[in-house]
């Protein structure tokens, strides 16, 4: 033991006491430095904006997103807005309603950021029908060329709509009561607030009346609502701040106790927000809970420190300087460990290849590290300048009701009966949670947007449009040709048609659209609407001719939404009824199955799996490479009449990817066919591995996936891949820091136990409440992991401190619960209450997250003050009992 200002201090904390002294000695330069840095960050924080960048929400490295990015500007992205005009009485086919649709469509064309070539409405120039003119000439003419003046004109439009396969049921409902205006917005020009306001002003407000209802849905609209409701945040923050001040004032009986944590929180917030702006990031309205949580962390550490300062004041005989230094030195390790754990734990989010989450990980980590300065290093200086509390006030707190309640609880928790009851209750709770957690889903579990409440204006509109049109959320599958004019190949068009019919069988797919639909409709019109001609022609010349007839009157900018000008690439779009995570997975799987089976059939082989090996089961009669001649295949080892693949061949490799089972074969095959003009196979035949190269017999390859459903599928796949990994790494990070903090393998495990329970129970709650893990919930759940560890750290550190002093584990745990446990209880109580305030938000996501995090904090708090002490007392871990040995007191003697 050493001495500090006449007080004995532990040898291992000598350096920390020295540091505390130096901080006070050099307080002026430290204050000037921190003020300058804070001013610098404040300047940048003041320029911070609330922005959501759609591209940053997507996992850019995912193959679906690469396809989405390549084709979104032509075939349509995920940023569609649907405006539905619905009449109560009659149909839309009257001059008044049709003129409304006309004017709304023209107004939509003027909304900021709209892609003028990707507006679909019966009143837009890009929606055309084939008109046979005098002399047998045909041309594609817009359905509406201007405002309608008579009922006869309206009837004429009705007849056109009813005979156009690309309009009836797609842009006009089958009961003629509703019309849809669908507009795509350019991703780089998405200004959600402006789009929301302009659509309200120009498209919605002037046209609604007693007989006409207007419903608006789509991702840009959804974010527009989120931005509008984001102002709730200020109310919640103000309310939380005021409540926190009241709680802390009530707890410390002194305004300094309320102010001190605020200084820590505000400085850390300025640094954090300034850093966000400085590195070119912006705040997402859906991520506003995050700054609140980080500030809550800062305040939480600060409350512990302030409580310890009061305690040290009394213990030191009211020696202010010693109390400041002792509080700093004694809490340095748990505070720094807590901050480091939080900051590194958040960095785990970097694993998810979503730019927004990666930005969030970096900024949150920096912000949390900023607490080191605002809480730890600045702390002795702030206390030095701040007038100390009245001694009578400090003593009166020890005699108060809260303190007596904590002592009462601590006394019971450490008894044998308390330990037994604790373990029983937690075991039962974990059993129930395990039962419910099986229902946890990745992606959205409901068809409505989980960002807003079910009865919100947006979700009501969304549901109404879905009900009327049977599916409005696009999944775009690109058919990419290997050469120009590939889309004139009848086999490719038939495959597109088969693809549509196959996927339309899925209950979540409303309808689909592709180039095949256009060619069939044009062919029928060309043959005087004879139904038997509503088919895809058998040869390239006829197909090319029909396309020429249909597209010749339209500029390439208009036709590009169906097919590119060189006829190399087109798309099949499926309009889905919802975006539930399970449904998206099923649809994508069906698409993959179709593509895989079609390609194998084109190649002329079937495969089978035996003992995790993939064999060629059958070569179909007249396989492609024989039928098409040598120009279709290149075979190094196959002789004349012999194909490169033979029954019984084992496929060991596709391209450069080894094949270990059927799943890996499918993955490798999809990758090879997507990227290569030649397919390389590694074949094991008669115990010899040979290489064969096949020229694929198809003209185009289907590539997944764009549109809202495609982008969500990519995000869900990434989340599924990374969710478990993130949780494991999050826990591992904490365990490693505990390992170094306490020099014990077991310490981390004990402290992680309450967190694991909190994680399990919160996940079970999410499953029970239909809250899926998605791009927004994932980081918050990960941040929640760090909350509990702070509580555990303070309690275990205090137990270690007390065990050295009193030499008995049960007494040490009791003392830790009565001191650190008291501050932990207060912090948890105030944080749970203020975090739960988020449940008042109009944004369901914020409300649910607030509630979830309040639960997180509540459960990990209960775990830290009940389960953790119980485990310590039952298992008597070595990292605690060795402190008894160091003090020269054996457990046996004491007990």
């Amino acid at each position, binding site marked *: 033991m050493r001495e500090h200002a006449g007080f004995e201090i532990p040898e291992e904390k000598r350096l920390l006491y020295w540091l505390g002294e130096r901080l006070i000695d050099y307080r002026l330069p430290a204050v000037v430095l921190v003020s300058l840095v804070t001013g610098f960050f404040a300047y940048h924080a003041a320029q911070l904006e609330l922005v959501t960048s759609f591209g940053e929400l997507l996992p850019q490295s995912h193959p679906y997103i690469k396809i989405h990015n390549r084709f979104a500007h032509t075939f349509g992205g995920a940023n569609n807005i649907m405006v539905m005009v619905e009449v109560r009485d009659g149909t839309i086919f009257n001059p008044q309603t049709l003129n409304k649709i006309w004017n709304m469509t023209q107004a939509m064309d003027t909304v900021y950021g709209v892609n003028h070539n990707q507006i679909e409405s019966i009143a837009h120039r890009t929606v055309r029908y084939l008109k046979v003119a005098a002399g047998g000439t045909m041309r594609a003419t817009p359905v509406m060329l201007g405002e309608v003046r008579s009922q006869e004109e309206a009837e004429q439009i009705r007849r056109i709509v009813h005979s156009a396969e690309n309009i009836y049921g797609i842009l006009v409902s089958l009961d003629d009561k509703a019309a849809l205006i669908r507009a795509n917005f350019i991703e780089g020009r998405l200004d959600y607030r402006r789009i929301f306001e302009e659509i309200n002003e120009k498209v919605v407000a002037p046209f609604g009346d007693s007989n006409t209802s207007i419903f608006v849905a789509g991702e840009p609209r959804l974010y527009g609502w989120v931005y509008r409701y984001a102002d709730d945040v200020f109310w919640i923050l*103000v309310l939380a701040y005021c409540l926190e001040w009241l709680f802390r004032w009530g707890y410390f009986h*002194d305004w300094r106790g309320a102010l001190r944590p605020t200084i820590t929180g505000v400085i850390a917030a300025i640094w954090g927000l300034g850093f966000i702006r400085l590195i070119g990031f912006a705040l997402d309205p859906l991520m506003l809970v995050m700054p609140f949580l980080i500030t809550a962390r800062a305040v939480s550490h600060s409350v512990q420190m302030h409580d310890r300062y009061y305690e040290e004041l009394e213990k030191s005989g009211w020696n202010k300087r010693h109390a400041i230094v002792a509080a700093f030195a004694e809490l340095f390790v748990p505070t720094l460990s807590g901050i480091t754990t939080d900051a590194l734990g958040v960095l785990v989010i970097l694993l998810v290849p979503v730019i927004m989450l990666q930005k969030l990980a970096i900024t949150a980590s920096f912000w949390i590290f900023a607490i080191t300065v605002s809480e730890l290093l600045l702390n002795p200086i702030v206390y030095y300048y701040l007038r100390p509390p009245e001694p*009578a006030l400090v003593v009166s707190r020890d005699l108060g009701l809260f303190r007596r309640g904590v002592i009462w609880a601590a006394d019971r928790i450490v008894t044998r009966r308390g330990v037994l009851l604790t373990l029983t209750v937690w075991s039962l709770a974990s059993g129930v949670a395990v039962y419910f957690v099986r229902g946890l889903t990745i992606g959205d579990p409901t068809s409505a947007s989980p960002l807003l409440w079910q009865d919100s204006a947006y979700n009501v509109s969304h549901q109404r449009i879905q009900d009327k049109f049977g599916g409005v959320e696009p999944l775009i599958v690109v058919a990419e040709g290997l050469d120009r004019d590939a889309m004139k190949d009848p086999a490719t068009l038939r495959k597109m048609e088969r693809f549509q019919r196959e996927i339309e069988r899925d209950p979540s797919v409303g309808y689909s659209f592709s180039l095949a639909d256009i060619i069939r409709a044009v062919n029928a019109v060309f043959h005087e609407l004879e139904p038997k001609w509503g088919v895809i022609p058998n040869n390239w010349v006829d197909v090319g001719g029909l396309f020429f007839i249909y597209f010749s009157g339209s500029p390439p900018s208009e036709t590009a939404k169906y097919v590119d000008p060189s006829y190399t690439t087109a798309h099949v779009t499926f309009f889905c009824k919802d975006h539930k995570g399970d449904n998206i997975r099923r649809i994508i799987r069906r698409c993959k199955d179709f593509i895989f089976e079609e390609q194998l059939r084109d190649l002329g082989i079937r495969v089978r799996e035996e003992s995790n090996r993939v064999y060629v089961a059958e070569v179909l009669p007249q396989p492609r490479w024989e039928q098409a001649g040598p120009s279709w295949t290149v075979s190094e080892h196959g002789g004349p009449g012999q194909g490169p693949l033979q029954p019984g061949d084992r496929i060991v490799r596709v391209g450069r990817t080894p094949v270990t089972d059927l799943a890996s074969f499918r993955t490798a095959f999809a990758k090879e066919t997507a990227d290569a003009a030649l397919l390389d196979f590694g074949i094991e035949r008669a115990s010899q591995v040979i290489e064969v190269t096949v020229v694929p017999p198809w003209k185009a390859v289907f590539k997944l996936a764009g549109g809202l459903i495609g982008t969500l599928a990519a995000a869900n796949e990434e989340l599924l891949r990374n969710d478990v990994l993130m949780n494991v790494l999050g826990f591992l990070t904490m365990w490693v820091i505990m390992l170094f903090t306490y020099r014990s393998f077991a310490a981390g495990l004990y402290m992680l136990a309450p967190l694991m329970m909190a994680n399990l129970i919160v996940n079970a709650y999410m499953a029970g409440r239909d809250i899926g893990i998605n791009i927004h919930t994932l980081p918050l759940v990960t941040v929640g992991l760090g909350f509990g560890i702070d509580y555990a750290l303070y309690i275990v550190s205090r137990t270690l401190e007390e065990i050295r002093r009193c030499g008995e584990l049960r007494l040490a745990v009791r003392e830790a619960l009565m001191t650190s446990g008291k501050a932990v209880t207060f912090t948890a109580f105030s944080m749970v209450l203020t975090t739960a305030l988020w449940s008042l938000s109009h944004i369901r996501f914020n409300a649910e997250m607030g509630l979830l995090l309040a639960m997180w904090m509540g459960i990990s708090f209960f775990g830290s003050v009940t389960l953790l002490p119980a485990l310590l007392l039952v298992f008597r871990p070595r990292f605690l009992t060795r402190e008894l040995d160091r003090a020269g007191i054996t457990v046996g003697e004491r007990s």
Partner: protein
Amino acid sequence: MRLTLMSSIAIVVLFSLLLIAFDEWVARPWRRRRWERRAKEGDERAQRLLRIAKEVRIKGEK
């Protein structure tokens, strides 16, 4: 009523100042009077707190 960033900051600053003023000029004198009243009634806890308030001074304070 819609709040902005600036109006929110104004509200929390005003609230903090009000609470500080309340603590200094209302709560503290009231607490002292309560201890004195209870001490007169023979409450030992209140007597102890009053004694501490009168006798104990923080060391190292300027």
